[in-house]
C-alpha cells in the first residue's frame, strides 16, 4: 500500500525518540552470551566444508567424489549434480554461485562440499575429491573485459539494452539524464575530462558466514544463519532446493556485520543439501579467506567524467560513463551509480551511461549504498578540481549548484524537501572549515546522496497481562535496531522505553520481511511498529470504552492511558495500559496490534563530509587528521546509533580511499584473501569522527525518519581524495591512494 503523508508541518514533540537509552541486547553482547552464526550447535551435528576452484576460469570436465565418500567419517558429498534446476529461474545465478555448474568462474568458486564428523575429516575428504578442470582464458579488469576480444564468461546473455558489437561481457547498459550535454558544455568556461578508477572492496564484516542446517527427507527444514534477511534466505533456499517456503523455518542469529554482503546466500543451500543427504544437522562456517575469495565484494569501476563549469562556479553540464565489473554474474550496481552520480546537483544538462560488466571475480554483493560511492568519487573529484582551478571555495560551488526542494533530480523526479543545502551550510559555518592547516596538510569536502528504501514489513506488538509490551519484528538487529523499535513503540504507546521488549522473530512467526538493507529498518520497520502500536491503542481505547459504557469514539489515548475524549464523554479516571492489560481476559481477550505493509515512500538523504589529511611527501603515507560528517537523518530516533552509522560509513570510505583493494595477479588469483593484506582501517589509523546530525523530516514517515546507514559511505572516497590532492599538490584519480601510488604521483609531479 501507499502511505499517506503523516507528518504535520510543525515539529513534533517526542518523549522517547531522540533520547539515548541503553540497547536491550547490550548485556548479551558485552558478556559474550549473544549467539552469532557460528555459535550454535546441534546434537549429532556434522561439519560441512567447501572445495573451491583454484582457477579463475575453467571448464569442469568431471568431479570424482568416490574416494571422499569412502573415507570413514564422511556422511555426504555434494556437487552441482545434486541440485536440480531451481523452481524460480530468478535464483539460477545464485545457485550457480553457491555451487558451480559447467564452469568455475572465479578463484574460490565452490565446486563441491562435504559433511563429516569433524573438521579434520572434512578437510581430508576435500583433498580426496578429484576435479578435472580445463583452464580457460580469464579476465579480471573491467576495461579489459570490455575489449571486443576479451575472454567471455556468458556469451549471449547481454540484455536488449546493450548495443550490438560490444564485448560479450557487457550485460546491460543504463542511461539516465535530461537536457543537452553538448549545449551545456559549450556554455562553460572550462570543461574538465577525467577518468577515475576504484578497486573492488569487501564489506569486511568481522563475522564470517555461518549456518546450521537440518533438513529432513520429507522436506521440512530448519536453518540458523547469520544474514541480513532470513526471509530472503528462506525464499531463496526454497527455490534452489525445490521445497515449499512454509516448510523451511529460518532463524536469524545475531549478525556480526553485513553492510550489504549478507543480503544473499552462499553456504545455506549447500548446508541444507548436505543435511538432507546425510540425515544429520550440518554446520558450515567460512574461513576469512573463503569470505574474501568467494563472497561479494563490491564492484570495481572505471568512470569517464565530463563536466563544464563557468568561472563563477555554475555547472553547465555533467556527463559520466560508468563501467562497473560486478564479478562473474550480471547485476553490478552501475545502474545505482548512474542514477546517483549527479544527484546532489541542480543541473539543466546531465547524462550518465552505465555498463554492467562480468569478469572472473566473485559475484559482487551489495555494499552500503551500492554503486554510489565510486560515482560520487568521480563527480565530486571533478567538481573539486574545477572549483579549485577557478580559485573558488569548493563548498560555495556546491551550494551554488545544490539540489533543493523543487529541483529536478539528475535521475528524473522532482525533489521534495531535502537536506543537502542544510548540510552544506552547516559545514560552511562549522569551525572545522576555518581551522588552520599546516604544511603538507590539506582539506577536502564532498557530498553524497542515497535513495533509501522501504519494502515488505510485518510486525506484531503484543500487550502482556502485566502491561508490558513485546514487539516481534523480522529484521536482524545489525546495529541497535531493537533499541530504536522499542523506542518508537514506547513513544507511540506513551510508556517508558524499558516496558517494551523487541524480539527478532523467525520466519515461522511473521509474514514476509524484506532484507535489512537499503537503510530501511528504522524507516520501514519503525513505521510498521508505530502503526502496530496505533492498532493496539485503538483496541485498548475500545476496551476502556466498554468498561466505561461509552462510545469507543469518545475515548482517546494520551500519555500511556485511555481517557475520555472530552467532558461530554463523562467523568472517568484515565485507564493505563497496565490497567487495561490486567482486565484483557474480561474484556475480550489478549490485546495486540499488528501491521503489514510494503513501506513505499522512503526519503532520500544527503551528506557532506569534510576531512583534513597530512601527506608524507617522502613516502606517500596519508594521515587522517580530522573528519566531520554532516548528514540529514530526517529524525534521529537514537542519536548515538545514528552517529555510529555516520562514523562507521565514513571510516569504511576512508579504507576504500586509502588502502583497501582486491589485488589480482596476472594469473587471476586473489593475492590478498586475509585481513593482513586486505587492509581495513585499524584504531590507530584514525582520529575521532565528528558528526553533525541534521533533521529535515521525511514526510513519508510518521516521525520523519529517513534511512541513515548508507549515505555515510558515499562522500568519503571523494572527500579524502580531494583532501589528499590538496595536501600533496597532485590530483589523485585512482583509488586506493596507497602510498606507492601516491608517492609515484608526487614524484612525477615534481619531475
Amino acid at each position: 500500500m501507499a502511505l499517506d503523508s503523516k507528518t504535520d508541518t510543525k515539529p513534533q514533540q517526542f518523549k522517547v525518540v531522540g533520547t539515548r537509552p541503553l540497547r536491550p541486547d547490550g548485556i548479551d553482547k558485552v558478556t559474550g552470551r549473544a549467539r552469532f552464526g557460528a555459535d550454535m550447535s546441534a546434537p549429532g551435528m556434522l561439519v560441512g566444508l567447501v572445495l573451491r576452484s583454484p582457477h579463475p576460469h575453467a571448464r569442469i570436465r568431471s568431479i570424482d567424489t568416490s574416494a571422499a565418500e569412502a573415507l570413514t567419517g564422511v556422511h555426504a558429498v555434494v556437487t552441482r549434480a545434486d541440485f536440480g534446476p531451481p523452481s524460480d529461474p530468478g535464483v539460477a545465478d545464485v545457485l550457480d554461485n553457491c555451487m558451480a555448474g559447467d564452469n568455475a568462474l572465479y578463484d574460490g568458486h565452490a565446486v563441491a562440499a562435504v559433511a563429516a564428523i569433524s573438521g579434520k575429516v572434512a578437510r581430508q575428504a576435500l583433498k580426496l575429491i578429484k576435479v578435472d578442470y580445463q583452464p580457460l582464458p580469464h579476465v579480471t579488469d573491467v576495461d579489459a573485459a570490455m575489449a571486443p576480444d576479451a575472454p567471455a564468461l556468458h556469451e549471449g546473455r547481454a540484455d536488449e539494452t546493450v548495443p550490438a558489437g560490444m564485448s560479450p561481457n557487457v550485460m546491460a547498459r543504463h542511461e539516465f539524464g535530461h537536457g543537452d550535454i553538448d549545449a551545456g558544455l559549450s556554455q562553460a568556461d572550462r570543461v574538465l575530462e577525467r577518468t577515475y578508477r576504484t578497486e573492488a572492496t569487501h564489506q569486511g564484516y568481522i563475522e564470517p558466514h555461518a549456518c546450521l542446517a537440518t533438513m529432513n527427507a520429507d522436506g521440512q527444514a530448519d536453518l540458523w544463519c547469520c544474514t541480513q534477511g532470513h526471509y530472503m534466505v528462506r525464499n531463496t533456499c526454497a527455490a534452489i532446493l525445490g521445497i515449499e517456503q512454509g516448510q523451511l523455518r529460518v532463524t536469524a542469529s545475531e549478525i556480526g556485520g553485513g553492510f550489504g554482503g549478507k543480503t544473499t546466500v552462499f553456504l545455506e543451500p549447500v548446508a541444507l543439501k548436505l543435511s538432507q543427504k546425510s540425515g544429520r544437522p550440518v554446520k558450515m562456517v567460512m574461513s576469512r579467506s573463503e569470505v574474501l575469495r568467494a563472497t561479494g565484494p563490491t564492484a570495481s569501476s572505471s568512470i569517464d567524467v565530463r563536466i563544464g563549469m563557468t568561472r563563477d562556479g555554475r555547472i553547465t553540464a555533467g556527463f559520466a560513463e560508468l563501467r562497473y565489473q560486478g564479478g562473474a554474474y550480471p547485476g553490478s550496481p552501475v545502474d545505482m551509480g548512474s542514477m546517483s552520480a549527479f544527484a546532489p546537483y541542480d543541473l539543466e544538462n546531465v547524462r550518465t551511461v552505465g555498463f554492467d560488466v562480468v569478469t572472473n571475480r566473485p559475484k559482487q554483493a551489495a555494499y552500503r549504498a551500492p554503486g554510489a560511492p565510486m560515482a560520487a568519487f568521480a563527480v565530486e573529484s571533478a567538481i573539486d578540481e574545477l572549483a579549485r582551478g577557478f580559485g573558488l571555495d569548493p563548498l560555495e560551488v556546491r551550494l551554488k549548484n545544490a539540489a533543493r526542494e523543487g529541483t529536478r533530480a539528475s535521475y528524473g523526479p522532482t525533489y521534495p524537501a531535502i537536506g543537502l543545502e542544510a548540510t552544506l551550510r552547516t559545514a560552511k559555518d562549522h569551525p572545522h572549515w576555518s581551522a588552520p592547516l599546516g604544511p603538507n596538510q590539506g582539506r577536502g569536502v564532498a557530498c553524497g546522496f542515497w535513495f533509501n528504501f522501504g519494502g515488505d514489513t510485518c510486525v506484531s506488538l503484543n500487550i502482556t497481562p502485566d502491561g508490558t509490551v513485546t514487539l516481534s519484528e523480522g529484521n536482524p538487529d545489525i546495529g541497535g535496531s531493537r533499541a530504536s523499535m522499542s523506542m518508537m513503540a514506547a513513544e507511540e504507546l506513551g510508556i517508558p522505553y524499558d516496558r517494551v521488549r523487541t524480539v527478532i522473530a523467525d520466519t515461522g512467526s511473521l509474514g514476509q520481511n524484506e532484507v535489512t538493507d537499503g537503510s530501511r529498518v528504522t524507516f520501514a520497520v519503525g513505521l510498521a511498529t508505530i502503526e502496530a502500536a496505533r492498532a493496539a491503542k485503538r483496541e485498548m481505547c475500545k476496551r476502556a470504552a466498554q468498561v466505561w459504557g461509552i462510545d469507543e469514539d469518545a475515548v482517546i489515548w494520551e500519555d500511556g492511558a485511555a481517557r475520555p475524549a472530552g467532558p461530554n464523554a463523562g467523568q472517568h479516571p484515565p485507564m493505563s495500559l497496565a490497567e487495561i492489560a490486567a482486565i484483557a481476559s474480561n474484556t475480550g481477550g489478549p490485546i495486540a496490534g499488528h501491521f503489514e505493509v510494503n513501506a513505499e515512500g522512503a526519503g532520500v538523504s544527503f551528506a557532506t563530509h569534510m576531512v583534513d589529511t597530512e601527506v608524507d611527501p617522502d613516502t606517500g603515507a596519508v594521515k587522517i587528521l580530522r573528519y566531520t560528517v554532516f548528514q540529514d537523518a530526517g529524525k534521529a530516533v537514537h542519536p548515538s546509533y545514528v552517529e555510529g552509522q555516520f562514523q562507521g560509513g565514513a571510516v569504511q570510505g576512508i579504507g576504500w580511499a586509502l588502502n583497501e583493494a582486491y589485488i589480482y595477479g596476472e594469473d587471476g588469483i586473489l593475492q590478498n584473501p586475509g585481513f593482513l593484506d586486505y587492509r581495513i582501517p585499524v584504531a590507530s589509523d584514525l582520529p575521532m569522527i565528528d558528526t553533525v546530525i541534521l533533521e529535515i523530516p521525511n514526510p513519508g514517515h510518521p516521525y520523519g525518519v529517513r534511512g541513515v546507514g548508507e549515505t555515510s559511505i558515499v562522500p568519503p572516497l571523494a572527500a579524502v581524495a580531494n583532501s589528499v590532492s590538496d595536501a600533496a599538490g597532485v590530483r589523485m584519480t585512482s583509488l586506493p591512494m596507497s602510498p606507492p601510488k601516491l608517492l609515484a604521483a608526487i614524484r612525477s609531479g615534481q619531475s
Partner: protein
Amino acid sequence: MSKIHVTTTINGDPVEYLCDAEETLLDVLRDHLGLTGSKEGCGTGDCGACSVTVDGRLVCSCLMLGAEAAGREIGTIEGMAKGDQLHPLQQKFIEHAALQCGICTPGILVAAKSLLDHNPDPSEEETRYWLAGNLCRCTGYDKIIRAVLDAAKDMREAS
C-alpha cells in the same frame, strides 16, 4: 592418534579437556567447552576477535594450541563480569553505544581490560595503538575509544 589431556584454569575455574594436537585454544574454547564468546574472525591473528589472556598476557586464542594451555590461567570474555556485576568497561560500552553488531566486542573488551590492567591512565593514542589488533568494521572506533577512556577514568576515581 590419541588426544591430549589438558588441565588448566579458565576464568578461575579448574577445567580439563581432551584436544587434538592441532586444535587451537580458540577451537577448544568454542567447540569443546561451549565458551563461544571468543569469536573467530580471521584465524590468522589479524582481527583480535578471539582475544583472551594467558597468565595475564593478551593473546589471540586462534594463534595458540589448546595443548599449550596446560597449567596456565586463561581469561575469556565470559569471566569479565562478576556475577551480575558488569565490569566498568562492559557498562561503558553499552552506555557509549560502542558496539553496533557486537561481534568484535568480546575481543575488544578483553583487550581493553588488559590495557587498563597495564596502564590505568592511557592516552587516546596509547589506547588506539593497544587496540590496533582488534578490528571493528561498524563503529569507526570513535565510540569504542571514548568508552575505554571513560571507563578508565571511572576506575581511577573509584580506586
